[in-house]
């Protein structure tokens, strides 16, 4: 039963890649859902789970391009384990520290993925695409943490109207 949430996370990655990515991307700026999920798992779960979830998430993310399996897997697993160790060494009680961790985790991860895909114009894309996408992903992470910590609840939303 403990594996079901992780299967759901993987299904979310697949769902996002197939259907939601186009709907949530504006001017090339999109949510890096894989990085966000891997980092959230690393913030709340153990080192081994973070490592293997990163590994599997890397496989799911690179589905369709098997030549990149190895690079994706190692990068995503590294993101999981680095996030875990950062969490261990930093005080992440504050919401903003978690958001900063996500922001500075997504930026190098997206840059590495860009390098793996060997896309021209890295510098330009880093400024116009990776940085805004990392901020966008952090905003989604912020909403996630607000919901998880009951700072946004259905009751509170209802009370607005």
């Amino acid at each position, binding site marked *: 039963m403990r594996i079901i949430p992780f299967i759901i996370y993987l299904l979310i990655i697949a769902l996002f890649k197939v259907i939601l990515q186009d709907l949530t991307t504006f001017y090339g700026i999109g949510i890096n859902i894989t990085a966000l999920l891997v980092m959230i798992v690393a913030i709340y779960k153990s080192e081994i789970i973070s*490592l293997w979830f990163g590994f599997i998430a890397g496989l799911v993310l690179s589905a369709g391009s*098997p030549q990149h399996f190895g690079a994706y897997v190692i990068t995503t697993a590294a993101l999981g384990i680095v996030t875990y160790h950062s969490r261990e060494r930093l005080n992440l009680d504050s919401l903003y520290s978690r958001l900063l961790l996500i922001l500075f985790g997504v930026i190098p991860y997206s840059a590495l993925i860009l390098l793996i895909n060997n896309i021209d114009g890295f510098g330009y894309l880093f400024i116009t695409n990776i940085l805004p996408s990392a901020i966008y992903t952090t905003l989604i992470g912020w909403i996630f943490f607000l919901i998880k910590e009951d700072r946004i609840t259905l009751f509170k939303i209802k009370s607005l109207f």
Partner: protein
Amino acid sequence: MNWISTQFSRHGRYINVTAVLIFSILFIFGPSIITEAIDRTILAGLYYPFYKIENFFKLMVSQVEANDQLRESLMILSLQLSEYEEIQRENIRLRDALGFTPPSGYHLLPAEVISVSGYKMSMSAIINQGINDSVFNDDPVINQDGLVGRISSTTPEYATVQLLTDPSNRVAARVASSREMGIVKYKVLIGMILDNFPLHGSITIGDTVISSGLGGIYPPGLILGYVTEINRDESETFCMVKLTPAVNFHSIDEVFVLKAKGEM
């Protein structure tokens, strides 16, 4: 076994990291058959349901678009069809009019009715011929069925026709078979009548009533209507004859202005 589990719990982190590294190196440098098999498994297990959903919505959207296009085409085609039907009807009317010959001494100036006015019954119509086409006041207007009326006013481009159904319009008439005369006029609520017809004049139901040519406006022989009812009241001097107009004033479309030869 005990040694293995002890080693695993003591060095679990390194073993897991090493396993991940070995798998990654295997994926990078190993045979592509392994990565392709994993790829197919992931695509079939995780992605396939979402691709199906995506394709379903794409198909739905494309069908809605196709439906809109078909509806638009249908509208255009139905408009074209109604246009063609109107052209066909006009063609039939013009074919009927083609064999129509004017009274002797006259020639026909074709015109099209562009508007009709009147309360309950059409009383006047505007045609697309005017002074510029030598159409003048009191010129008779006919169609293939009979007398329609006369020109009552003109402008350079258009002319107004006072129809027979205007109660103020009078036509000197005679019964075609007996040659006895009367005056055809139109009475509101009663319809077209042959007035001033002798009480014991020779007339039967179905007789054709034509213009006599005595009024000076209409040439003789133009069909005005057909007798439908005859009321002979002995206390009256004239009998009351009801007529059905030869022309259907509800559907006048193409008409001809009669011009005496040499007028144009």
